[in-house]
């Protein structure tokens, strides 16, 4: 694409809204373009003079529609910072200049043009015709002959009307090159589909700075934030340092003034990255932060490697508070980390809350069934302790049998006064084992009224 071409055009040509090499749909466009700019030069001369000073200022800003990406950022900023009259005024001047050059069968408005046309130098097809060409093949479509704002508007309107992706994009690109930014923006606001196509185009070209500005201009600041955030995530790849740096910059530069709720998450992400950085510094081993990209993943790692740590950064409690973690979620993650380290006593402290006001029974934070299965490698006493908290006898029995907590099984049978069951169960226990003795004692217990 002739990316810098607009920038090198002289002011007159730019003012005439005609670009010689904007968005070329065909090879002939070059010659036609050249012809036309000289052809229409006289026509616009008067207006051009009137606005000489204005032009001088605005001309430096015209790279809005060109292709340079990051360098353009500041310039677009400047466009937006310009006093309002520059935006609106140029628009109205533009409208004054707007003359129907040719509109199909309509009588020609300007004798200058009719004279030249009389010489048969130019045939501009009807807007409808041109746009419909896109449906057949976009290769042959030439848009450059359309000079006036109203024609360009018509082109876009027709393209949007027939709903053809290629046509909409083709025209939008042409307009982005050949129209002044303020007018281009106006048209985008008016024709939503064109905006979406242009946005998509900029995204595929990875012109994020451009796009972010456009979105902000259109008042879609949340999308702009998300887009920037996505870009940062992509650009960092898996590099923690870069991600942290970029996100910090982003957060202080763009997020400070925004009240979008995504900002909350972005700031939390930043907090998490700080913790991850700390982990990397403390731990010699490589900490694969991409595998622990979530808060709870990181929490798990901290619980596993820094459980007794009291420094505020690397402490499970402080993480819980910082991110306002749900107690259940928190308990799950820490439980798994403690199981891995076989820190059994700590598990009791983590999960059990003594009920007060004289209650005798502990309460468990998590569903007991799941807890018991997570503890299958724990000492039998610990598992039993949790098993006994399951109120439903049948459930307790099934799980206890699965986990081979014989004492609990025997207790359930005893509570159900099921002597026969104990006898059968005892047959499978190792002779003289603690459990076998316990079974015998249970059977001898005179205070139980057996049902069988």
């Amino acid at each position, binding site marked *: 694409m002739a990316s810098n071409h607009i920038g090198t055009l002289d002011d007159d040509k730019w003012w005439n809204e005609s670009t010689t090499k904007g968005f070329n749909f065909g090879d002939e466009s070059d010659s036609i373009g050249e012809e036309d700019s000289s052809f229409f030069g006289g026509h616009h001369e008067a207006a051009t003079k009137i606005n000489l000073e204005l032009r001088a200022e605005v001309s430096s800003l015209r790279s809005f529609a060109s292709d340079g990406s990051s360098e353009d950022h500041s310039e677009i900023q400047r466009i937006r910072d310009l006093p309002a009259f520059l935006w609106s005024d140029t628009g109205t001047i533009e409208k004054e200049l707007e003359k129907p050059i040719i509109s199909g069968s309509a009588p020609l408005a300007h004798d200058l043009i009719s004279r030249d046309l009389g010489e048969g130098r130019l045939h501009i097809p009807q807007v409808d015709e041109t746009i419909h060409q896109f*449906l057949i093949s976009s290769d042959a479509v030439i848009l450059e002959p359309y000079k006036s704002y109203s024609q360009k508007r018509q082109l876009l309107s027709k393209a949007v009307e027939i709903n053809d992706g290629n046509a909409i994009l083709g025209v939008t690109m042409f307009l982005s090159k050949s129209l002044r930014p303020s007018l281009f923006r106006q048209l985008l606001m008016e024709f939503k589909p064109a905006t979406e196509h242009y946005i998509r185009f900029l995204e*595929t070209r990875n012109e994020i700075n451009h796009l972010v500005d456009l979105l902000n201009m259109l008042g879609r600041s949340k999308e702009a934030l998300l887009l920037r955030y996505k870009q940062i995530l992509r650009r960092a790849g898996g590099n923690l340092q870069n991600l942290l740096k970029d996100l910090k910059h982003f957060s202080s530069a763009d997020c400070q003034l925004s009240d979008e709720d995504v900002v909350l998450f972005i700031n939390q992400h930043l907090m998490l990255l700080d913790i991850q950085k700390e982990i990397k510094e403390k731990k010699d081993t490589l900490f694969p932060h991409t595998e622990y990209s979530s808060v709870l993943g990181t929490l798990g790692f901290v619980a596993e490697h820094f459980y007794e740590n009291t420094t505020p950064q690397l402490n499970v409690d402080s993480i819980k508070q910082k991110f306002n973690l749900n107690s259940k979620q928190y308990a799950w993650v820490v439980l798994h980390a403690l199981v891995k380290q076989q820190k059994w006593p700590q598990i009791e402290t983590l999960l059990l809350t003594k009920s007060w006001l004289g209650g005798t029974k502990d309460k468990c934070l998590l569903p007991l069934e799941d807890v018991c299965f997570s503890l299958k490698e724990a000492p039998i006493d610990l598992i039993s302790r949790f098993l006994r908290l399951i109120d439903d006898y049948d459930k307790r029995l099934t799980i206890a049998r699965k986990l081979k907590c014989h004492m609990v099984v025997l207790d359930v049978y005893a509570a159900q006064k099921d002597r026969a069951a104990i006898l059968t169960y005892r047959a499978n226990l190792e002779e003289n084992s603690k459990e076998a003795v316990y079974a015998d004692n249970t059977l001898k217990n005179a205070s139980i009224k057996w049902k069988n």
Partner: protein
Amino acid sequence: MSGFGMAEDEVRRPMNSVVDLEIIQQVAQKDLIALFQKCQGDKAIVWDRALANPMNLIATPKVLKEHGVVRMIQLDSGMALPPDIPETVLFICRPLVQLMPVVASCVRTEEKNRRRRKFHLIFIPRTSKLCEKYLEEQGVRLSLESIDDLPIFLFPLDKDVLTLELDPVFKEFHADMDPTGMHNIARALVSLQKRFGTPSKVFGKGAAASYVYSLMQNLKQESGSIKPQISGVGMDYMILIDRQIDPLSPLVTQLTYEGLIDEFFGISNNQVKLPEEKFGETKTIFLSSGEDLYAELRDKNFSAIGGILRSKTTKIQEKLRQKERGNMSVSEMKQLVQHLPAIQTLKQSLSTHTSIAELIKAKTETDEFLSSLECEQELLSGMGTEKVNSHIENLCGKKAPLNNVLRLLLIQSITSGGLKANILQHYQRLIVQNYGFQHVLTLNRLYAMGLLRLQGGSRYTTLRRALNLTVCDVSEINPTDFAYVHSIYAPLSIRLIQHRLKPSLWANLKDSLLSLLPGPTVDEDTEIPVGLISGKRSTKFTVVVFIGGCTFAEISALRFLAQQDDEREFLVVTSKIINGNTFLKSLQEDILSVQS
């Protein structure tokens, strides 16, 4: 097959006896080969991954070989062409800009290595300005001898199903507001009508539906009018369903045989790759109605599969035992020998499908599956949709695949008519904290598309009652209602079609229904001059177009409708076959893949 072993089974009518989709395949194949003939000699094809499979339905590798294709390579990022390929290289791609860098880098590498190559690029189904522009900018446009397009829009999956293989149509149209996919669909439908006739009635619901319909009108004007009726085939109805009017159905777990195969293993263009545990190695199996047993099984609820497989196996064993015992009359013997090849085929089929059924059973019996199914069915029945669902919470805690969580979350959001702000926030935090911050983007996309919503009048409750969306007592073995495809839930999309086709049902519901579903309505009835109608029109032939994809369960439900009504036959045209996972995947932000 001669009907052996089917004799006592229900008689199934052909799914579509009206139009012959083979013509579509033949024409497409001819066009492809015509392009091949432009370049002489041996050639290598570099396939866009997403096209390689569907193109198989158009031209088999054997056919390609006959026309000089000696190598097939997959287009992959970071790839280089192997040195030992013919001079002529054809890239066959969808018109997607993200594929162009790969093409460009292949071409450049070859040039750097000074290899003599003739490159051609073929776009299916049409060229894109954006792609060509990109290649120009990268300076490789001139290295390509030709850029052509091959207007293959439709790929026949079966006698009654055509797919466009357009993956992200739903997202493109409703999130990116990009109508390019609509254009392809409109073109495909116009070409279909040129071949098989114009329907006398058109019904469509949803923004994409009316969009496609208006594009079709435009296209028809462009290419000159199509005669309203072409002899022979009578297309009675065309129904356009925008996925947006029913995003719920694809999220619900499919419980048909075919649906479950797709949910667990993913069917891609009639092929499924099965894990090695049953077959000793990873095995690719071809699934289509060409296989009698599969044609019978595919649409049934999985609960019915075991019984059918068992009884058929017993019957076969019986027959073979009789033969061994030798106590058969000569005529019986003769008949058996005649049927022997068919019996062998059936035996093979039975063994394959018994293995597949066992693989599925192992998965459907797990706690994960059953508890999620239970949660899903509660939500669909309108139970507990108001509060934070503890099963969804637990799934997060257990690090279940994110898609499983999102499916249930979206089902809750839709069935509750939008979540309360604090509940949505809770879920948002839950997912981000468990699965990573990048999913802020995922959730935002879902929110922007209206799949994840804030509270505001529950349409679902009203629709559920009006359309009888949940049916508790439908038999899974001998169903009387197509709700069996999800055991208790009848897909809204198909219920809408069912009601639209029955004037008596429609009259009552019309107004309330159309206002409850989003987007504009198309409802047209073209009177066809009597003189133009030729041939008998005893069969009411309905083309159902799913814009944004449909599930196997939905197709099964339509086939069930066809079985119920002797005069009705359906042809399904879908932008893609989807299931909950692929549907969600097409909506998600693709960050990680770009990272790698």
